[in-house]
């Protein structure tokens, strides 16, 4: 197991280098950051030259990348053109987004699995059909539409939950964005759970559990659901990345000053350091989440052994 983890961590290095370099190239392809900095005005050549020198912009791209990575390993993400350190931006934005993702993930897990189980146990009946139709609707409507509609209805018209978040991030204010962010994933989780539960109800070991005289709730939770969760957990793990990505859209709708917001600002201002720094952390989180899921997979299914 230890060796497996080590190998996986080593495998992450080329993936990490590849993705960060790609981001680096893409941000540079956006155009000259110094021009963008001055907006419509023509830049003062002296100032422009100074900035270029300070940010290594005269070097070839690969050298810029190497210099950047060198600093990164000393936890120096550089500064924006306005002088703010990217580290402070990260410290401000990431906790907010992680909170939002955590809220959404909890909603996704609890309601996705709950609805899927209900649906799978009552296949072909009203509860099942309702879940199927509902999830289909959720999946087929783009998130930002669901987002704006729910924001208007729940937040503005009925006033049940705060419509926007702003600077004061409370659990209550994250509830509505969390629901919006979770909705599509939740629908997928519900459908996947439904399928595996329905499949496993016919499994021999479930029949054995019934023959043992176990009460129904024990058969369902301890035997049926426990086995059905294995593929669901895999999905949840890969979906964590999708949730972080979705958070960027949701943050715009609900005016949340998280990763999405900062990243968007960074792109508009062509602040290479901000964009690359934020994406780098995203990549790390994504890779670690994947590793965690694979390990969890082995815990859930003893037939899988990593060596």
């Amino acid at each position: 197991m230890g060796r497996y983890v080590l190998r996986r961590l080593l495998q992450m290095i080329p993936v990490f280098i590849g993705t960060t370099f790609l981001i680096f190239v893409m941000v540079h392809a956006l155009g000259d950051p110094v021009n963008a900095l001055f907006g419509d005005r023509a830049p003062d050549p002296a100032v422009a030259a100074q900035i270029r020198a300070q940010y290594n912009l005269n070097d070839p791209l690969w050298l810029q990348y190497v210099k950047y990575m060198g600093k990164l390993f000393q936890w120096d993400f550089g500064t924006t053109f306005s002088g703010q350190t990217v580290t402070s931006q990260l410290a401000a934005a990431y906790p907010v987004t992680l909170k939002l993702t955590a809220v959404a993930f909890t909603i996704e897990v609890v309601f996705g699995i709950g609805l899927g189980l209900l649906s799978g146990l009552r296949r072909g009946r009203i509860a099942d059909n309702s879940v199927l139709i509902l999830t289909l609707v959720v999946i087929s409507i783009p998130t930002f539409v669901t987002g704006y509609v729910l924001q208007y209805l729940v937040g503005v018209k009925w006033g049940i939950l705060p419509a926007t978040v702003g600077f004061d991030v409370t659990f209550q204010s994250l509830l509505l964005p969390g629901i919006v962010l979770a909705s599509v994933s939740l629908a997928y989780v519900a459908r996947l759970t439904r399928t595996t539960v329905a499949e496993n109800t016919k499994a021999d070991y479930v029949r054995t559990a019934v023959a043992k005289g176990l009460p129904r709730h024990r058969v369902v939770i301890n035997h049926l659901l426990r086995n059905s969760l294995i593929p669901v957990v895999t999905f949840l793990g890969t979906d964590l990345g999708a949730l972080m990505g979705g958070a960027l859209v949701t943050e715009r709708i609900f005016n949340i000053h998280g990763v999405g917001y900062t990243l968007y600002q960074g792109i508009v201002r062509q602040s290479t350091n901000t964009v690359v720094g934020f994406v780098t952390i995203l990549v790390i989180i994504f890779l670690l989440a994947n590793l965690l899921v694979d390990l969890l997979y082995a815990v859930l299914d003893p037939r899988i052994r990593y060596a």
Partner: protein
Amino acid sequence: MSSSSTSAQPREATADTVESPLLEVRDLHVEFRTRDGVAKAVNGVNYSVRAGETLAILGESGSGKSVTAQAVMGILDSPPGFVTGGQIVFKGRDLLTLGKEDRRKVRGSQMAMIFQDALSSLNPVHSVGSQLGEMYRVHKGSSRQDAKAKAIELMDRVRIPAAKARVGDYPHQFSGGMRQRIMIAMALALEPDLIIADEPTTALDVTVQAQVMDLLAELQGEYHMGLILITHDLGVVADVADKIAVMYAGRIVETAPVHELYAKPAHPYTRGLLDSIPRLDQKGQELYAIKGLPPNLLRIPPGCAFNPRCPRAQEICRTTVPPLFEVTDEAGTPRPGRASACHFWKETLDD
């Protein structure tokens, strides 16, 4: 045996009187309502088992052996399966009239089942210790620790080597024979009065089949349980069974004490089954096989269900369902425990 002495006898006398066998299945009907139609899987099965007795149920695959057992256990896949008639009298109570919760309490504690494929019948994600211990935790409310100790004890009973070290292992870490021992241990856990073993050795290597069968027979004798042994292999049952019921198309077509059935079958189907066993003294000869296929349960033939395959079939076989005739010897005295659902049982017997 005299009615005095030995300690096993008083128990025998109460649970096993002539009037009340341990389990009596009466005129059981089960059907599966599927998209293609209604499959009549069990069509009036009657059988009984006493404490300490082994009843073997024999028949080709698809004849309704498992479905009957599932109906007795109350684990029928429903829908599509429904019990549409009959009684299942167990220790004096008709199980079919019991409520769900009462029925559940009977399962596992008073009657238990051993399935054919132990690998798929054990839960892959729980250790065998926890699956065995679950019996005590649920039915007896034992603590986790006690349940584990009991699980080890059980594994010792079924002679799994190094039980203490292996109690935390998972089903896939055991060999086929050991897994089947674990299934047997699970069935034995609460010392039930009746065990139903559905082809317990079919999935095993020939070399371990006999070991597992011997273990089962030995434990059954020790605990004085009733045993229903389902099999399609006549060779397996000769040594362990007391009596045999032969099933065809959801009916019992012949019942007999085991040696009488081997010596003098009274039904052409049984005869066919016996003739298809490979025999040492006829090595090299071509094996006999009953011609044709088991009937489609959606369209069971009228009259005797076996008539399209029967070498003896006459006109009456295609029109009249043969009842279960009492089988008598030449003098006309009934042979105890013998019956045959064949219009020509007498002729078959005389062959």
